């Protein structure tokens, strides 16, 4: 047995750096559970140094150019390549959010929450290394990109050597550290539907220090019709075994006349739906309390952005 907690990488693994998605899925088919995909490596290498994961093979995605980049789709949606770094996504969203109002119908016009999640993400160094696909596939309940993507009804495509499926992100997370992706599947695309008019979004993260993962985070999206919330999504992180949507709170919000009192009520409702635990970062009670507050605040902020 190797000594634990040396923070050094144990030696027994080899690596591949395929150039195409197909080659990567072939390697996954061949090595199965013995192999791990590595995108930015910021989760995987830490887990390997802690000896929580001991793959025999690492399959790096770094040289597969087809997995990177952000594309606007014809129908107005956005396609995000999984190896897009958090920093690259932040810069893309920041520059497109600065577009003049005439471009308001652009696919990114209401993606403020995703931009905020990228901005709150850890340190500059980690932002440059961490990828959005790695953030989802690591399936941490604290993944910062998950709540905004859930709130935008994102979909993901998983490919193996012989199969391909596209599913809503709501079905993707199974348990802490576990997604629906099989060991032979690669996350190849993340899709955001076309943005709706009169829609605003917001993300709020509470953490011990900005560089840390969240104690609680929440993302909301509201579509407005007059004074009513015509459609809405509320998603939270670090409050349950997986990133989750507060669907009862969403239902209570939709169709109602928006007000501070309503936002407060919806925040409390969302806090009843979560299943937080106490851990090194926060107690269960703190998470319960703060979830109501940040859902309320995020709703107010998103509502302001609908006008």
């Amino acid at each position, binding site marked *: 047995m190797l000594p634990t907690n040396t*923070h*050094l*990488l*144990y*030696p*027994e*693994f*080899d*690596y591949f*750096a395929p150039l195409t998605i197909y080659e990567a899925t072939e390697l996954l088919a061949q090595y199965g559970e013995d192999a791990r995909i*590595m995108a*930015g*490596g*910021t989760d995987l*290498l*830490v887990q390997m*140094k802690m000896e929580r994961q001991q793959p025999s093979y*690492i399959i*790096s995605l*770094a040289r597969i150019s087809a997995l990177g980049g952000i594309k606007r789709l014809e129908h107005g949606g956005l396609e995000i390549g999984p190896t897009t770094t958090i920093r690259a996504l932040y810069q893309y969203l920041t520059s497109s959010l600065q577009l003049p109002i005439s471009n308001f119908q652009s696919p990114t016009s209401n993606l403020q929450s995703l931009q905020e999640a990228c901005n709150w993400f*850890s*340190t*500059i*160094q*980690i932002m*440059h*290394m961490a990828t959005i696909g790695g953030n989802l596939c690591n399936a941490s309940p604290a993944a910062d990109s998950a709540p905004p993507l859930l709130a935008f009804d994102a979909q993901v495509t998983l490919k193996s050597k012989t199969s391909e499926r596209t599913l809503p992100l709501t079905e993707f997370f199974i348990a802490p550290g576990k997604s629906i992706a099989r060991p032979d599947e690669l996350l190849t695309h993340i899709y955001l539907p076309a943005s709706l008019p009169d829609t605003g979004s917001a993300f709020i993260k509470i953490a011990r*220090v*900005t*560089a840390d993962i969240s104690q609680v985070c929440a993302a909301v999206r509201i579509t407005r019709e007059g004074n009513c919330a015509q459609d809405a999504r509320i998603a939270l992180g670090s409050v349950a075994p997986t990133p989750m949507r507060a669907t009862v709170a969403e239902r209570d919000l939709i169709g109602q006349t928006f007000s501070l009192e309503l936002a407060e009520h919806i925040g409390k409702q969302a806090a009843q739906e979560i299943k937080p635990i106490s851990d090194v970062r926060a107690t269960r009670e703190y998470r319960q309390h703060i979830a109501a507050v940040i859902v309320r605040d995020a709703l107010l902020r998103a509502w302001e952005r609908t006008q």
Partner: protein
Amino acid sequence: MEPRLVTLKVNGRTHHAALAPNTTLLHALRDLGYTDVKSGCEKGDCGACTVLVNNTPLNACLMLAWLAEGQEIVTVAGLGNAEHPHPLQQAFVDFGAAQCGYCTPGMILAAKALLDEHPHPTDDEMREALSGNLCRCTGYVRIIEAIQNAANELDAEQRG
């Protein structure tokens, strides 16, 4: 696993090194003699191992060395030396921004990346840019002062 030959370009010099697959860029650099790159937490938290890869600040402890093949790596020694220090290096000396000095190489490189992007950073921008670099000695105040001063110095240099 068998070591493989990896070509690393560090501070303008090219090295061919036989590296085992588990060698992080941090330890590859230190073994090549670039001991100005420090090992702290080994988990991405402290920033002591910060290097610039193609002008981007990364944690060398979380990067496998073979992934840096062919890329331009810069350590703090690549910015300047005792005879010809970079304005950031000089400012860290002048403002007492280093005590034990263990965080200093990472701090200076994170600051360099910031100034490349924002030549006139605000206080908030400086603090944010250094959020991945921990210092147990200085309390950060002098570090911020040093960076602010280096920014002014670089600006004056540019204006000639």
